[in-house]
């Protein structure tokens, strides 16, 4: 007859491990409390994070091997057609870029005319996926750019299509990114069509996000595109975030139940863009957010008048 595992049976008198166990448990709990509430251990974790790169790299080997193998064995015709398709896409994108340059110039001139303050140039760094956070409910990724590359905590991360998330932890050569679909992430957005500002939260599910604070009478429709609003000073404004998929309005409820699907290919992207905004200094723990008196000005904007 097997004995039931009771608390008492773990600590019956004479158990030689009891003391050591208790000490280690207390130590673990203390660490958890300290890590959750203070940042004393951050630098320790950051340094220990150097172990992550080799482990994740080793874990990724079979996938990389398989991908390389399929490439090596892929038929020549397949590769040629793919090549042509990519060339066509590149051509399209270059054309759009030219148009964008024109539009930016026009935008600058119009702003000058209106005497508004200059736009800040955003610099971008490309990073590659190092690994995915193994816990399926935690929507987080590891990327292969870290402190040595200037990555800072709170830095926005995008993919080719839209917003992915933000950096939450920085190690010397890698960083951890919290995706917008994580249950603890909340992103200020606005509806592209009419500028209605709201928040979109993750649910822990990779394909579903929710807008919790939309009133019954708000002007929002299924199919609306949500873009970053720039509120909160963290994500630059105007980047696509999600599309509204479902709106349920129940009379008597203060808020409608709105669901959205992220625009970025959160599960499939391997390459990401890290956006550096020039007026942001790398995150310092206790310093309050300092808004500069004069934004750092690019050469092109030397003629811009500035309003406070």
């Amino acid at each position, binding site marked *: 007859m097997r004995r039931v595992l009771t608390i008492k049976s773990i600590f019956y008198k004479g158990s030689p491990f009891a003391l050591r166990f208790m000490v*280690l448990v207390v130590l673990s709990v203390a660490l*958890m409390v300290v890590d959750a509430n203070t940042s004393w251990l951050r630098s320790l974790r950051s340094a220990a994070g150097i172990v992550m790169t080799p482990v994740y790299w080793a874990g990724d080997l079979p996938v990389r091997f398989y991908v390389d193998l399929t490439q090596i064995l892929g038929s020549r015709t397949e590769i040629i057609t793919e090549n042509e398709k990519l060339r066509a896409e590149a051509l399209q994108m270059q054309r759009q870029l030219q148009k964008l340059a024109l539009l930016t110039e026009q935008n600058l001139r119009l702003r000058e005319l209106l005497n508004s303050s200059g736009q800040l140039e955003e610099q971008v760094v490309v990073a590659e996926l190092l690994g995915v956070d193994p816990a*399926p409910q935690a929507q987080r990724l590891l990327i292969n750019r870290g402190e040595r590359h200037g990555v800072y905590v709170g830095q926005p991360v995008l993919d080719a299509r839209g917003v992915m998330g933000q950096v939450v932890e920085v190690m010397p050569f890698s960083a951890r990114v919290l995706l917008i679909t994580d*249950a603890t992430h909340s992103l200020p957005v606005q509806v592209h069509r009419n500028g209605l500002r709201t928040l979109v939260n993750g649910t822990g599910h990779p394909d579903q996000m929710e807008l919790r604070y939309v009133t019954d009478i708000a002007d929002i429709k299924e199919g609306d595109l949500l873009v970053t609003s720039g509120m909160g000073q963290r994500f630059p404004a105007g980047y696509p975030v999600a599309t509204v998929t479902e709106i349920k309005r129940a009379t008597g409820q203060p808020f409608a139940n709105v669901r959205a699907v992220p625009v970025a290919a959160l599960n499939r992207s391997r390459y990401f863009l890290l956006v550096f905004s020039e007026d942001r200094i790398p995150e310092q723990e206790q310093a309050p957010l300092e808004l500069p008196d004069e934004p750092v000005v690019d050469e092109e904007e030397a003629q811009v008048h500035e309003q406070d």
Partner: protein
Amino acid sequence: MSRTSPGAILLVLVSLAVSLVLAVAPIPEILGNARPLWLALVLAYWAFVLPGGFSLVLAWLCGLVLDVLYGSVFGLNALFCLFVVVAVLQFRQRLRMFPYWQQSVFFLVVFVVGQFVLFWPGWLAGEQARLLDRMLPALVSALLWPWVYTLLQLIGRLSPGSAAR
């Protein structure tokens, strides 16, 4: 196998390193939530073989490494590994005599309780996940236990300098 032979130490380190790599390696999406708790399985095996006090400290340290890898609160996985190892230590003698399937049931109970310890911070943060999704790793790991046990035993016996245990 002699406990302090260099072969033994190497085997411990290698098996733990492999379990850590498996713990973060990407798995196909169909398997999704069913990632076995490799580190816990390997630590449980060593808890059978190695002196108790040492197993506890080893479990604690490896748990901390797993915390760094997973980005979870420092000490969370350490607590989980401690729990698994202490459960094995308490029942070491009896467990050895159980048939494999009964050992699996034992580990199923241990892992399920351990998973609750692991997941309450996520639950507090408002993550939505079905109970089955959360318990699947425990189930899969319990089923894998006999294989892990025999594999590590086999390697232990085959490594140079080992005497029949």
